C-alpha cells in the first residue's frame, strides 16, 4: 500500500511535469471540440476548394452522424496519442535504471504496476467522459436532427473507457517486455487497429474487445446482453496483463 500511494503521487507529478496530461487532453477533449466544428465546416470547405459542388455526395449531417464521426475519430486519433504518450511507462524505468533506489528502499513491483495502471486508467476515464460530454453538448448546439441522447453519450463513454483501460493494461505489459517503449507503442496501435477488422465478422466480433467500440457508436442500442462476452474478455485480459506485468518485473534485472 505504501508503494502504491507513493507511486500514484509520483505518476501524477510525472504526468504533470512531462506534459502527459496536456498530450492526452489534446488527443481526447481538444478533439471533441474540433471534430464537430470541422464537420460543420466541411461542406463549406468542399464548396470553396472544389470546382464542382460535391456536397450532395456527403451523408446528411445531423447530431447522430456528428457524434458517430467523433467516436470513430477518437478511436483512430486518440489511440495514436494514447500509444505514443504512454509507451514508456515501464520500459523507461527499467532502461534508465530508475527503479534502483525505490526498490532498495522497499518498493514492491505489485504496488508500482498497480499505481501506474490505476492512475492512467483514472486519467483516461476522466478524459474520455469529459470528451464525450463535451462533444455531446457541442454537437447538440451545432447540429440539428437525429436521435442522439445523453444516455447514448454516457454509454459510449463507459464502453470507450473500458476499452482504453484494456489497451492500457496491455500497453503496460508490452512496455515491461521491451527495453524501448517505441516497440510497445507501435504494437499496441497495430493491435487496436487490427482488432477492429474483426468487427466485420458477425460470428466472433462480440467476443472481442473492439465490439465495445462498435456498440458505443450504436446510438439506438443499449447495454444489452451481447456486450457480456466482450466485457468479460476485456476484464479478464486486464487482470491477466497486470498479473503478467508484475511477474515479468520480478524476473528482470533492474540494475
Amino acid at each position, binding site marked *: 500500500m*505504501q*508503494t502504491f*500511494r*507513493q507511486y500514484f*503521487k*509520483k505518476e501524477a*507529478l*510525472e504526468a504533470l*511535469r*512531462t506534459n502527459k496530461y496536456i498530450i492526452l487532453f489534446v488527443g481526447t477533449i481538444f478533439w471533441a471540440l474540433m471534430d464537430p466544428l470541422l464537420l460543420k465546416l466541411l461542406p463549406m470547405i468542399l464548396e470553396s476548394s472544389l470546382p464542382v459542388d460535391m456536397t450532395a455526395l456527403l451523408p446528411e449531417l445531423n447530431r447522430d452522424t456528428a457524434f458517430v464521426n467523433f467516436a470513430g475519430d477518437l478511436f483512430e486519433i486518440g489511440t495514436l496519442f494514447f500509444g505514443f504518450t504512454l509507451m514508456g511507462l515501464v520500459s523507461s524505468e527499467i532502461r*534508465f*535504471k*530508475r527503479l*534502483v*533506489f*525505490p*526498490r*532498495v*528502499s*522497499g*518498493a*514492491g513491483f505489485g504496488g508500482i504496476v498497480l499505481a501506474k495502471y490505476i492512475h492512467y486508467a483514472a486519467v483516461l476515464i476522466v478524459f474520455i467522459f469529459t470528451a464525450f460530454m463535451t462533444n455531446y453538448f457541442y454537437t447538440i448546439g451545432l447540429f440539428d436532427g437525429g436521435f442522439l441522447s445523453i444516455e447514448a453519450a454516457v454509454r459510449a463513454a463507459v464502453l470507450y473507457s473500458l476499452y482504453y483501460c484494456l489497451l492500457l493494461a496491455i500497453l503496460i505489459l508490452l512496455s515491461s517486455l521491451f527495453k524501448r517503449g517505441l516497440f510497445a507503442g507501435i504494437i499496441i496501435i497495430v493491435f487496436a487497429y487490427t482488432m477492429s477488422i474483426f468487427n466485420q465478422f458477425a460470428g466472433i466480433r462480440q467476443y472481442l474487445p473492439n465490439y465495445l467500440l462498435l456498440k458505443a457508436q450504436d446510438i439506438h442500442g443499449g447495454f444489452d446482453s451481447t456486450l457480456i462476452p466482450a466485457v468479460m474478455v476485456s476484464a479478464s485480459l486486464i487482470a491477466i496483463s497486470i498479473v503478467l506485468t508484475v511477474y515479468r518485473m520480478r*524476473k528482470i*534485472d*533492474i*540494475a
Partner: protein
Amino acid sequence: MIKVEKLRKNYGRLKALKDISFEVQKGTVFGFIGRNGAGKTTTMNILTGLMKSDGGKIIIDGMDLSADRDELVKYIGYLPEAPSFYDYMNSYEYLELIAGLSGCRPEEKKKRTGELLDMVRLKKDAGRKIGGYSRGMKQRLALAAAIFDRPPILFLDEPSSALDPEGRREMLALIEELKDENTTIILSTHILSDAERVCDTVCMIDEGRIILAESLEVLYKKHIHPIFDIEFEARPEKQADMLKDLDWVKDLTSSGNKLSLEVNDMDKAKDQILGILSKSENTVISYRLRKMQLEDIFIGTVKDNADI
C-alpha cells in the same frame, strides 16, 4: 554477516562471475577492488537483489537473499556508480519519495530530508530539478537516498568517482563515521588509496574471480618487503662493511648516501641495526622498513593471476 557461496553470473557467453565466495563480517568495511569490468558492480547488483544470479547462495544475517529478498531489502542501502533519478523531480521531492517507500514517519521525513541535504551540501540546490544537476551533485544526492533510513548494510559502488577532492574527503570521513556506528559497508573502488584508508578487509577481483581476500593487516604482513632503507649524512662505506657479514643480512646495496639492507631475520634486524649503526660516526638521517602499498600488492597479485 554476509556469506556468499559460489556466486555465478553470465552475460550470454561472457562469464562475469565465476563461482566467487567470500564473507563480510558485521560492522566492517569490505573493499572490493579490481579493474574496470572485473565483476565488482555485477557482484554489488546481485548482493542488493537488483540482479539475478545464475547460481550460488547469498546469506545475509542468516536469511537467504533469494527467498527473503523483500525482508532483507529493509536492511540494505545502495549507492550505485551511475545513479539514476526522476529528472523532473527536485531533491526534496525525490527524498520524500524514498522516505515514503521506506516507511518513514511523516514527522521524521522532513527532519531527515533536511539533515541529509545539509550533509551532502545540496540544500541550496534542493529546489532545482535533478535533471539539471552535475554528476557530482547527483552522486551526493544518491548518497543521501542510500543512507536515508540508516541501513545497517550499505553497498557503495565507486562512491567517490564523480566527486571533487573535497567531496571525496568527506565521503571517506562519512564511511569512517558509519563504520563507527557499526554499519557494515561493502565498498567497490578502483581508488586504492581510498580502500587503504577505510577498509578492514579487501577482496581483489579480476576477470570474475576472487584472487585475494584478506584483512589489510594480514595483507601488509604477508606482502611486506624485508628491506630496510637507511640514509646517512655521508657516504656509508664503513657502515656497509660493518653490516655485510652479519648472519641475518642477506644482501646489501649502496647508492650515494643510502644503504638498502635485505634481511632474512626481521626480528634480529629490528633489534640490532640501530645499535650497530649508533657506534659509527656517520649520522643516520632516516631509517625505514620498506612497506608495500596496496597498489603494489594489487598489481603483483593481478600479474601473478594472469601468469597462472
